[in-house]
Every structure is written in C-alpha cells, then in structure tokens.
C-alpha cells in the first residue's frame, strides 16, 4: 500500500513541487493550503506523514503541529516542517512544538525523498 503524505503550504507552487516529487517516488500525496485544512484532511484520511510550511494563513504550521500532538491519535505522526535555510530559531520552535524534522526550502528533490523515506519508514 502506498504511503500517504500530506503537504501543507499556502504556496501552490511549493505544494505542487512537493506533490510531484513524492508522487514520482511512489507516494500518495494530499494537499492542504493551511493548517486548518490540513487538520480536516488528517481527520478523514489515513495520513502517514505531514510536510508543513510554517508561515501560513488561517492556521500556521507550528499551531498545526501543536494541535496534532495534542491529539493522542497523532502523537506519533511524523511531521516534517519546511523552513528557510539557517533559521535555527524556527527549527527549535518546531522541535519544541513536536516536529519530527525539517527540510529547507527550496528543497532538493532527492533530499526530500530521502528524508521522507527515513521518517516514513
């Protein structure tokens, strides 16, 4: 069965790039444009990994991560955050919120796939 990855980003370009890269690597991909939408999709789909941008309208990435971690069902859902390079503070905030890891954007597709494989198992 294909693993299902949810990409959460307000940038359509970014979502489409993530989706394409991961689909090419054999994943199913869901898309959401903000945290709120992501929560809705996670509630109705068996999602194996969330890749979330941090700065989004309606509900930002950190809030999304905290909300998910507050739900017992999603305490161990892998969540990767997309962040701009060298943003250590964000990385640490993400870690505290419960992120599993981070990827800088713009991302290198092969890197994205390799990290996704690591956390998806």
């Amino acid at each position: 069965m294909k693993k299902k990855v949810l990409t959460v980003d307000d940038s359509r370009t970014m979502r489409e790039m993530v989706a394409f890269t991961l689909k090419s690597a054999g994943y199913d991909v869901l898309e959401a444009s903000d945290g709120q939408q992501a929560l809705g999709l996670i509630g109705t789909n068996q999602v194996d990994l969330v890749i979330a941008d941090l700065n989004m309208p309606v509900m930002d990435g950190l809030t999304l991560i905290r909300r998910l971690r507050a739900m017992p069902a999603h305490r161990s859902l892998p969540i990767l955050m997309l962040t701009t390079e060298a943003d250590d503070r964000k990385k640490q905030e993400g870690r505290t919120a419960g992120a599993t890891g981070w990827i800088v954007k713009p991302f290198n597709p092969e890197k994205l796939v390799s990290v996704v494989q690591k956390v998806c198992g």
Partner: protein
Amino acid sequence: MEDLSRFKQTYFDESAELLAVAEAGLLRLTPGTADADEVNAIFRAVHSIKGGGGAFGFTDLVAFAHEFETVMDLVRNDAIPITTELVDTLIRANDVLGTMLGYARDEAPVPPGTGDAVADALRRHQSAPPPATDAGPPHNDLDAAFAAAHAAETTHPDDEDDEAGIFGDAMAAILDARNPSAAAAGRQRWTVVFRPRPDLLLSGNEPAFMLRALRRLGEAEVECHLDRLPGLAELDAEQLHLSWTITLLTGPSVDRERIADVFEFVADECDVTITADAPPPAVPDAAAPLPDALRSPSGPSVPAAAAPPPPPATPEPASRPADPAAPRAKPAENGAAQHAGLTSHTIRVDLDKIDRLVNMVGEMVITQAMIAEHVRELPPGEFQELLEGLEQLAQHTRELRESVMSIRAQPVSSVFSRMPRLVRELAGGLGKEVQLVTSGETTEVDKTVVENLVDPLTHMIRNSIDHGLETPEEREAAGKPRTGTVTLSAQHRSGRIVIEVADDGRGINRGRVLAKAVEKGLVQPGASLSDEEIDHLIFLPGFSTAEKVSNVSGRGVGMDVVRRNITSLGGRIGVYSSPGEGSRFVLSLPLTLAVLDGMVISVGEERFVLPLTNIVESLRPKPSDLHGLVNRCDVMMARGEYVRLVHLNRLFGIPGATEDATRALVVLVETEEGARLGLVVDEVLGQQQVVIKSLEANFRRLDGVAAATILGDGRVALILDVAGLRDMSRQGGSAPPRAAAALPAPEPAAV
C-alpha cells in the same frame, strides 16, 4: 532539478496573485493602523515568491525579495513603525518584484541596476531604529532557552545536514509508536552480517574497531564464524579469515544508515548485510504491513530479507554502505508512479476543456428541448413513464448546466482589488483626497465577464475621480468633507450582476454637456432634452467633457468606449446624477454568456423567447383592466399599478396576431432596473432553457432583440431584450438605435 521547471507556470500564475494580494494589503496599510493578519499576508506573499524563485534559481529576484521580506518581517514584529514613506517604498518594492518576475517569466536577464534604488530604500528601513517600546532582545533569550532545552532533553542524536534534519528524540518516539514490541523493550533488533575480505587488514583497517562502533549503537551480541579459517599450517597472519554476525539491539533512533555508516571506510573490502528484524507477528502494526521476515539465524550464508517497509519496498543489502543515501529513489523513472492518485481540493483545468463542456451542455439543452417537443405530440395519457423520465432529464440537464456554469464563475474581487491602487495613484496625481469603499467583492460572475470588467471599471473610476470629485478646497467651500468617496459595489439582481460606481462629487454639469454635444454636432441646437437624456450624452462616441486634456482621463478613451465594452458583454450602462451630490454609474451584465431560462411565446406565426428573469407574471386582462390613453388602449391596471402595454405585433410588424388585448395574453415584464411593462402576445407556449446564439456573428444586432436561439423543432427564435423593447415603444415603435442589447454574442461564427 530539471523536473521542477514544469512548475514555473504555476509559480508565475501564483506569484501574480500574490503580488496582487501584497499590493492590496500594502494599499490598506496606513500609519498606526497595521492589521496583523494583513501584514502577515503581505509577508507571506513575498516569502512565497522568494521561496519559489529560489527553487528555479532566479537569484536576482530572490536577493531582492529577501530585502523586501526582511523589512516585512520587521513590520510584522513591530520592530519598525509604519510610515507613509515606508508604505511607498514597499509598494515600489512590490512593483520591482513584479518587474523581476516578468523578466524571469520571459527568461530574460534582469538588467543591471533594476530595483537598486528600491533595494537601498528597503535596506535603509532595515536599519531604522526599533520603536522605543521594544524591550530588550527577547529573541536571544528564547534561543538560549531552546538551546538549553535541546541540550537537556536530547537523548537521541539528531540526524542532520545543511538541507534537512530529523530530530532524534521525535523520531525515536515515532519509531517506538510504530513498533510497540520493540518499544516495550526499548529496542530495535538488527542482524548485521559482516564478512571482510581477507586483505582487509592490509589497508590498515581493524575489524575490532567496527565491532566496537556497533556496540556503541546498542547492545550487541557478536558471533564469530570460523568456517573459513584454514589450518594452522596454511594460516597467513596478514590475512583475515574470520567473519561475524552481530545481533544488535538499538534504540529506535538508530536506523539502517547509522549502522551502515560504521562500515563506511571499508565498503569495498567487505560484504555487509544489515537486516532489521520484524516485530512479532502478533503485534498490530499501524504503520504498514511488513513482509514475512526471514529470521536471520546466525551464519553468513543466510540472506537478509526483512526491512522496515520503505516505499521502494525492497530491502537493501547494504553492500555499498559507504554510499548510503545514493540511488534510493530516482523520481519519475517510473511513468506509472507519476500518475499515482493525487488527492487534492482543487484541480487546475484548461479553459478550453471547460468551454467544450459548456458547448456540449448547450447542445444537450437543445436536444432535450427537441425531445420534449416531439413528446408533446404523443397521444395524451400514454407513455407516462417516458414523460416522467423526460421530466427528470430536464431537471438533470438544468442542474448540469448550472454546475458547468459555476465552474466558470469567479468572484469580482480579482477586478475590485486592482482599484485601490488606481484610486491612490489618481488621487495623488490630481491632488484630491479620495476614499474608496467597496462591497460585494465575492459576487460571482462568468470568468469572461470578470476579465472584461477591468477596463471599463478602471475608466469609470478614473472618470469619477477626475471629473466627478472636486478638489479638497472646493469640497470644503461646498460644505462637504475634504475627502471624496468613491463607492464600488457588486450584487446579483434578477439573474444579472449589477455593478455600481458612485461618487459624492459635483455631479454632471448638464449645461456644459449639452453645450459640448451641440458644439460637436451630436445634438441639434435648440433641441429639448430631459436631464436624463443629457446625462446620457456622455456615452456618445467622441464626447469628452474635460476642458483640458488631463493625463488621467484624456487618453482618447471616453465613456463611449466603456459603453461599447459593456454592450459587447451583453450589458447595459446607465448614469444617475444630481448636481452637487454626485453621480452613479450602474452596469448590468448577464451572469453567463451561454444559456438562459426562457419563456417561449408566440405572436402571429412567430415565436420568441423572453428571459425568465424579466417575467413577473402573465395575465389575461378583462376589458375593465384596460384604459385608453389618447383613444388608444395603452395602459392596463395590473397589481394596483398602471402598466404601459406594448403590442409586440405592432412593434415588430408581425401580421396575423391578435389585436384585442382582452383576447390575447399580457406578459408583465420588468427590466433589470425595475421598470415594468405589459407585452401583448398571442400565447405563452412554455418554459425552457435555451442556448444563446449570436445574431451578430453572421448578421447584426437588432433593436429589441438580445440574441437568438434554436428551438426544439430546429427553428430559430429571437430572444427579446425587454429594456430594448421598452425604449422602442417609447419612441413610437420606430427602430431607434439603442446602444445596449441584453445578451451577448457568445459564439464565434463556427465555420
């Protein structure tokens, strides 16, 4: 990577939207009243443009966006105050970003110096002192706190490089959850088979170090295999004859690669197989079903079998451990994988496809009408099921039509959002103070209509600010607030969209308009025109009231062009004006350009279609309802008000129709603007959806006729333009040219 270039179009489309969002936000940014959401939206827009630009290697654009983003970040954190000067800089920065995107889209190099001045201005704002209220450097404290937390809590090391990282602890928790049995023991079990080549020692490597390194990863049980050990006589002390099987119990944070890393320097000099043991079958595994694992007993001959289920679901013997991350997944090698089921909220569809769908639905509507027509000729009482089925078909056709049309519908906000900037620029250029109030931005209308609204609205707003509004001084002198107000609104009314552009300025100067019209030979000298008629003179071709050509309105474009644009969309424009109080321009446009619900009526041998949205009711008048005006039966009492009767047969010169209104039917109709009249017709044949066909494509526009359609029997019927009929009848039935028809020409001549 090559593959990502396919997203450039998405990026440019999205960036254009983001620029518009940023611009709208910036225009609303006024000193002291920053809305956090608004500022954040601008920041995000710039951030996204920068992010995508980075992916495609648009370095100049990214560098500039970075300066812009940095300033927006400061604004966002209240680190710099919002001043008029800052807002101006930001608006200019947004423009520069747009210019740079243009170069990127055209694959042209960015000319040196582009945006330098703005970038400098942005940098100046970055170094502006923070507001005095900003207490201390909280960020550093936070960083320190995070660092401390990190140091204190981390028990599993992070796996990171420059581009990505995985937090060890978080990953460990996930692996624990994924593999409850191992988690219970706190461990993952690995079987590592290590078979060095005999000459491993010659390269200065020592197997013992590797075994020790493995042990550091967890609890290791090491079994040494002596099967290749020669007899003592043949023993070469320089050669290695041993191999090992290590059973490793590790924490969940240890993955295959970390184990493989141990053998990194001896990759070419040994065979290593790393197998993750499956958890006991009894344990339900939420993450994914694992293939049946071949448990690896001791002994080098047993191949590795089971691995955690990675998407490319083959376990990898780590025979090249030195190159762990190498050819994991080659994206897009497998064509089928690309078409893997993407689930998404939205899809982007080529407009042509939608238009084909629209056309198809149009043909279906005609076919359905045709069937209905034939069925009407069947003997009554029979074929009940057929009739019911047809009724359903009609219903479904209607729903299908509505759904298809709604695909093309878009909110007018994309047009409205361009106007604040225009207002700002015009006000600045003309020395006027203007406030723009918009409402109904979410009102939806066909995409073609939305797109074609930009020019007319732009011009109307220009007109309002340039000609309508007074200078602040004039306004004060007239006892009005210095700031003039321009109102832009949209709403649905009677199946059409009505857009108004109103100002509270001086109103139309009728004396001047009339004089100008006479001077230009548009009106006979001495002609007596009503106020309303004078106001409408501004729509005449070549008419311009500006006494001196300003650089705002005087571009050779007049209200006549506005009217032509609106008319070509099947719309109408009108103006209401009160001297000293202002003017109001009202546009009324059809919501779609393809299909409408109509009532088929007959007059003599001819059949016509009346748009359902215009029909109030149909009545058969009693003689007592009818009243003569000047000896003609011209007026009828309907619902307590007098309504003028219009005999369609007289207006259109149709022979053989019923002259006596008491024997005919009166269809009470109402124009979009609320004017009522009674159309005298022979019969009302029934309601049906009709596909709008252009009369102009092969012929020309006709007064009182909006368009044509094809009825179920294949014959053509004209779709009536109620407002046009009203105008015709007011002019005594002659055919004066009217500027507007109610419906557009949707169809190019299909040749």
